């Protein structure tokens, strides 16, 4: 398969602003152009928009507003992993030869309609994400004898790490007590265990091997892709203390990239809620089942930024359609050694884990310098 790389990135600050979706899309696209002086509008063959926003033909709108006349222009939606799904589509257009350079732009507003899944009636009247998160948390705590206090280390660590991310929604650090004493949403979930919906945009330019080198001296290659959707309904999950779709997606991605979890220097994992981080680390193979919290405790105690250096979803905020792209930008910057205070020394191989709909769908990307 021909090589496909990341040639440029652009991002906005994640906020609670009441901005129009079109303006959020334009802002990160402008930032991407600002970051790539050699890029001209004619270089872009396709414009893909990732969002859960209900507005129509946003890719044509973004193209017009940016002065691009692409061959291919359409939106991509798959809830919280829309962003990486759009990146995979861009990859496929380039690998197939249908396009040489693809702009992927993700955006969301704080009031996204992607948060409540109306179709999933098996959830009864419990359709808000806090309910599946409570069931996951309770099942995880029960199976592995983990406490609320231990899970609270996840938001403590991720808010701490987000303080070095200038685009993060979070503006302060929290203590364990702050997390435990934050508003109780259910017996198993507190307000500070949750990532917060927000307004934000992230854009990335993917290109073929030769074209990549026109726009950057340090292209980052997408060497592994794995995706799996096991169902649409939350209650169809076979396990509530592990992520089956993540496990399958990871194994596919590792196989494609011919590397394994030990090669990963830095990873962004989908910590939609505290419990998701240890569960994801276990399902991705970073550690054994039930040992995710031990790994997180250790990382936190040693200020090791390996997992979610930008602060994850909990620290950065979670603008659904932009999240997977923002995660991929973080790993790109890490591998380019330009992540400033968040930099992990000598990172050569990184991983992105982006999931949706209570872990019924996952995308895993492997990136290499």
């Amino acid at each position, binding site marked *: 398969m021909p090589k496909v790389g990341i040639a440029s990135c652009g991002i906005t600050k994640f906020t609670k602003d009441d901005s129009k979706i079109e303006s959020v899309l334009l802002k990160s696209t402008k930032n991407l152009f600002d970051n790539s002086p050699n890029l001209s509008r004619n270089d872009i063959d396709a414009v893909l928009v990732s969002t859960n926003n209900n507005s129509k033909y946003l890719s044509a709108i973004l193209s017009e507003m940016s002065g691009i006349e692409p061959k291919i222009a359409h939106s991509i939606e798959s809830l919280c992993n829309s962003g990486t799904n759009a990146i995979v589509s861009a990859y496929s257009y380039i690998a197939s030869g249908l396009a040489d350079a693809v702009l992927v732009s993700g955006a969301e507003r704080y009031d996204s309609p992607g948060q409540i899944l109306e179709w999933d009636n*098996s959830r*009864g009247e419990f359709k808000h994400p806090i309910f599946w998160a409570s069931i996951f948390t*309770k099942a995880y705590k029960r199976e592995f004898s983990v406490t609320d206090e231990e899970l609270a280390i996840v938001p403590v660590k991720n808010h701490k790490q987000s303080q070095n991310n200038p685009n993060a929604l979070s503006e302060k650090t929290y203590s364990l007590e702050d997390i435990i004493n934050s508003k109780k949403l*259910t017996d198993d979930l507190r307000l500070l265990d949750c990532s917060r919906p927000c307004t934000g945009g992230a854009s990335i330019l993917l290109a073929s091997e030769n074209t990549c080198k026109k726009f950057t001296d340090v292209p980052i290659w997408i060497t592994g892709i794995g995706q799996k959707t096991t169902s649409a*309904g939350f*209650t169809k999950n076979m396990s*509530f203390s592990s992520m089956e779709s993540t496990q399958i997606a990871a194994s596919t991605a590792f196989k494609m990239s011919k590397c394994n979890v030990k090669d990963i220097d830095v990873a962004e994992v989908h910590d939609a809620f505290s419990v998701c981080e240890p569960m994801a680390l276990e399902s991705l193979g970073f550690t054994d089942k039930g040992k995710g919290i031990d790994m997180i405790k250790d990382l936190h105690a040693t200020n090791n930024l390996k997992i979610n250096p930008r602060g994850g979803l909990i620290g950065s905020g979670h603008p659904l359609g932009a999240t997977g792209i923002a995660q991929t930008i973080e790993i790109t910057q890490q591998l380019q050694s330009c992540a400033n205070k968040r930099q992990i020394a000598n990172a050569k191989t990184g991983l992105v884990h982006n999931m949706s709909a209570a872990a019924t769908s996952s995308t895993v990307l492997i990136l290499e310098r």
Partner: protein
Amino acid sequence: MNFESELKKGNFLISECVHCKKIVWPPSEFCNQCFKEVSWRKSLYEGKIIEFSKQNNNYFCLVEIENTIKVMGKISSGIPNVGQHVKIERCGIKDDNYYFEMSLI
């Protein structure tokens, strides 16, 4: 759909494929294994608790019905346990959402 008009009246129907001898869930006109038309029957209105949590003073739980169908519902009274058997006391559609209310047995 047949299922929803019955659920509105408080009846919980199950779609079953005669060919595959399997329950089809979520309820559908067609079997998700062979696409043949399903037949409808009343549920046994019994299940067991897979997991539960609590909001304010109300327990909510994930219940498995007839070893196949998993739904989320309320517990009407008592303290639930994983593996405990429940009976569907009430079900229906309220504000466009399905609801299930269980009692412990």
